[in-house]
């Protein structure tokens, strides 16, 4: 295919891109199997250790332009400006410092500067897949499957959760959608929900306890895997019940638009309006309830900026709006977490970076190397990690920022730091992969 628009197959997708990407990312609602370990462990009394660490994987769907988020300074910025006349983020507008003053952050990320300066917000640049893949569709699959060459089609998070014999459906969750992303698809149980309040059994006019009892009776003679899973689901809803009931109360008091209802832990009005508002408020409530969740995946779409990425004024344009919402939402999230912030780490992933050179529409087409953002507990922040490949034409991979470090190296450092129990089990999570040291975690 000779034409970029045709090649990426997304002609003028602006209105429906988000929906398409959500669909493309879908694994199937609640498509999550019963446990790898049969039902034996489900018979024992569940007691998740309190205060466990939590990883939030934030997928920037659509291919976020890392070169506008974490921007090189100096001579490298001059090179970038040569490729992107009119849409490069001006050097003078960048915020934040890094080793050798090599990089700065897009000014829209300014709300996160206190975390950057405190060392709890950092970035890794020029990371990505081992080989370029410029299809949204394929690249998302590959990045979340994270097991190239395997036809098993089990996601990396699912493989990690599968290592834990005490895992329950609520150990690994997707919020914002009942559809599990590829990273969560596989034999280990996982729970997908639009919001916490949905994690309940649809009522039929009786008390919740009677409804549970009724379901248990109806399924009592059924010893199939589905029957076991129905019982395990009833148990999960019971464990989540206090949280779910509280989350189902009006979020704001007395009216929508008013302050947060103190009885409802989902503090929606503490977050800026936009895509992440509800989902991050729910994520925070779930984490603070301390019910044993280890990994939460969230989607933040609309990064496919083939047109109108920005202008000479970096406080306008599509990228500014996306980053502004991201920064303010994450700031609100860590603040809302309160003391629980000490056990929460956020990592961003995007299916690919974007082309170094701008196209004819003040946008950039699908590319390769990208930046990942890491925030929160355990992060070795205040700096940009990784190996910078350079932006001279000969240093590019087919016109794209080269990838010098595999994204799995970053994920592995995060996992080892937050979940030391995975130590020695790397081959089960990232089969056949030998990581390189990044230094992204403290």
């Amino acid at each position: 295919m000779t034409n970029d628009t045709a090649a990426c197959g997304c002609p003028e997708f602006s209105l429906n891109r988000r929906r398409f990407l959500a669909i493309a990312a879908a694994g199937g609602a609640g498509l999550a199997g019963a446990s790898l370990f049969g039902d034996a462990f489900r018979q024992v009394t569940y007691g998740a250790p309190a205060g466990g660490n939590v990883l939030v994987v934030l997928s920037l769907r659509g291919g976020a332009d890392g070169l506008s988020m974490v921007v090189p300074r100096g001579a490298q910025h001059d090179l970038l400006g040569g490729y992107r006349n009119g849409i490069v983020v001006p050097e003078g507008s960048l915020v934040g410092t890094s080793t050798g003053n090599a990089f700065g952050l897009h000014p829209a990320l300014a709300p996160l500067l206190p975390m950057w300066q405190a060392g709890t917000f950092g970035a890794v640049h020029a990371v990505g897949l081992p080989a370029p893949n410029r299809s949204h569709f394929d690249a998302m699959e590959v990045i979340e499957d994270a097991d190239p060459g395997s036809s098993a089609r089990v996601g990396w998070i699912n493989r990690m959760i599968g290592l834990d014999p005490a895992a329950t459906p609520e150990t690994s969750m997707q919020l914002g959608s009942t559809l599990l992303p590829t990273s969560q698809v596989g034999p280990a149980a996982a729970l997908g929900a639009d919001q916490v309040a949905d994690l309940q059994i649809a009522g039929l006019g009786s008390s919740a306890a009677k409804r549970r009892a009724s379901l248990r009776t109806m399924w009592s003679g059924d010893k199939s895997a589905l029957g076991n899973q129905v019982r395990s689901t009833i148990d999960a809803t019971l464990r989540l019940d206090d949280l779910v009931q509280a989350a189902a109360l009006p979020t704001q008091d007395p009216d929508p638009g008013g302050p947060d209802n103190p009885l409802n832990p989902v503090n929606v009005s503490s977050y800026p309006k936009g895509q992440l508002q509800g989902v991050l408020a729910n994520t925070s409530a779930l984490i603070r309830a301390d019910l044993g969740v280890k990994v939460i995946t969230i989607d933040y779409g609309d990064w496919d900026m083939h047109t109108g990425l920005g202008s000479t004024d970096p406080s306008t344009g599509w990228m500014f709006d996306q980053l502004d919402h991201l920064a303010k939402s994450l700031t609100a999230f860590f603040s809302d977490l309160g003391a629980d912030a000490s056990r929460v780490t956020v990592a961003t992933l995007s299916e690919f970076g974007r082309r170094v050179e701008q196209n004819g529409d003040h946008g950039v087409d699908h590319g390769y190397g990208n930046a990942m953002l890491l925030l929160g507990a355990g992060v070795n922040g205040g700096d940009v990690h990784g190996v910078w490949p350079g932006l001279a034409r000969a240093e590019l991979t087919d016109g794209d920022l080269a990838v010098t470090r595999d994204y799995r190296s970053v994920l592995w450092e995060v996992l080892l730091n937050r979940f030391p129990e995975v130590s020695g089990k790397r081959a089960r999570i990232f089969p056949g992969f030998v990581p390189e040291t990044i230094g992204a975690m403290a």
Partner: protein
Amino acid sequence: MSETTLRPRSKGKPVPEPAGEPTARPSRASAEKPSTAPVTVAPKPVLLGAGSRHFARRFSGGLTPGLATSVSKAGGGRAWFEKQLCPGRISDPSGKAIDTWYPRLKQTPQQIFNGEVPWEVMGDLSRWTMARRIHSSRQLQEVMVDFWSNLLHVPLMDDTAYFYRVSYDRMIRTHALSSFEQLLLHATTHPAMGLSLDNAISTKDSPNENLGRELLELHTVGVDAGYTEKDVKQSARMLTGYRVDVWWPEFRAFYDPTVHSRGRVTVMGFTSANLAADGRAATKAYLKYLAHHPATAQRLARRLCVKFVSDHPSPGLVSTVARAYRTHNTSIKATLRAMVDHPEFAKSAGKKVRTPAEDYVATVRALGIKVLRPVDGNSFANAMYWQYRELGQAPYEWPAPDGFPQDNQSWSGAGRILTSFATHRNLAAQWWPTHEARFRSQDSWLPTLPASVDSVIDHVGRQLLGQPPGPSVKRGVAQVIGRTLNHRLTQSEADQYWTVIGIVSSLLDSPSHLSR
């Protein structure tokens, strides 16, 4: 994202409500009242024997009184199955009507490409497919279209392939009950497959291995068949030449001899000199070879058995089916017959979990909802997309090339279970969607009252599930309505809002509805 964005452009004429007596009592629902069919005397449903019921539940979207009557008239499950193998001979007025609901499905790939809303046309295809699964009398045909579409999967929202996805669906429907050889040939060389798995951009100078590999791994012999990376490369070379000019206004699918990779091709025992610039004859021979390969026979036989018998079919069953496949020249009908005539099939009743899409179709059928021609985004036929999509298995929306999983475990997750329960409740209570659909009145489920709770649940269960509910299911249902099984239910108790809804919805949450 508005729900009306996917509505058909040309609105169909609303179907007039049938004249008739009003329902005996007004609906108890405080929400907007859906239209309900005038049911004066509920016809006594035909209860099939276990064997016939098994055939009907495996090869349809779910039992209905109408289906039970057809099976009974045909002379039992096996005879009904045989009739269903020739869908062209089955009169299908409902299916024919549904075929007129979504005029955009008649657009050419070029028109879809230029229409700027290909994803909306895909939404039409999705709804049309589900409507056919719900109401077509050619039920086995719909079941097999689903099966082959998952094996030879082209994702619905694949942004490179969707211009050709409707055409691909038509191809699958044409060959769903012919032979696998024909199906494989047409699927592999179809522009939708070529675009989805990159064969359309694969050339002799820069071959793309995607389709060459998946053809072996997913569509035919399987990943354990012993082919090598060299085989994959040769497979990809063999397929070069089938192109689609997506960048030109013609939007043509064509064969380009100038990009076909000539010269000897050897894959898993297949050899072709492949000397001609036009490689189509050699490609055809290659696909025929793969279709007939013993490993393909085994793999397809196993997959069919996992879909229609159980997750763990015996080696004996699989070889019997594989043998029929090979001796009958890959005939799909002969292969299916060998499977259902094996004693293991009869013993497998109820062993398969209904997937979310199967659950949705079976729920609408069980509730006796008649979906009518849609007029806007709120119409049942259109709004149901959001409902079944949330349930998690909108047709063909599996993103990876391997198609939706077929095993029980994949569809037994907690999120799926909770969403199924909520969907059962929303439909049983007639909450949403309700426009352009006819529902049974809630009273029509009930026997003459007063009657024992036990007999009421039995009465509802026979109509809804096509079989009498078992003792633990009855006890469970009685618990949710807060009565004992011996209690004599009066009319005024039955009139309470949750009584009938509680019974109907609970029965849909029971094991016999969530499995088939």
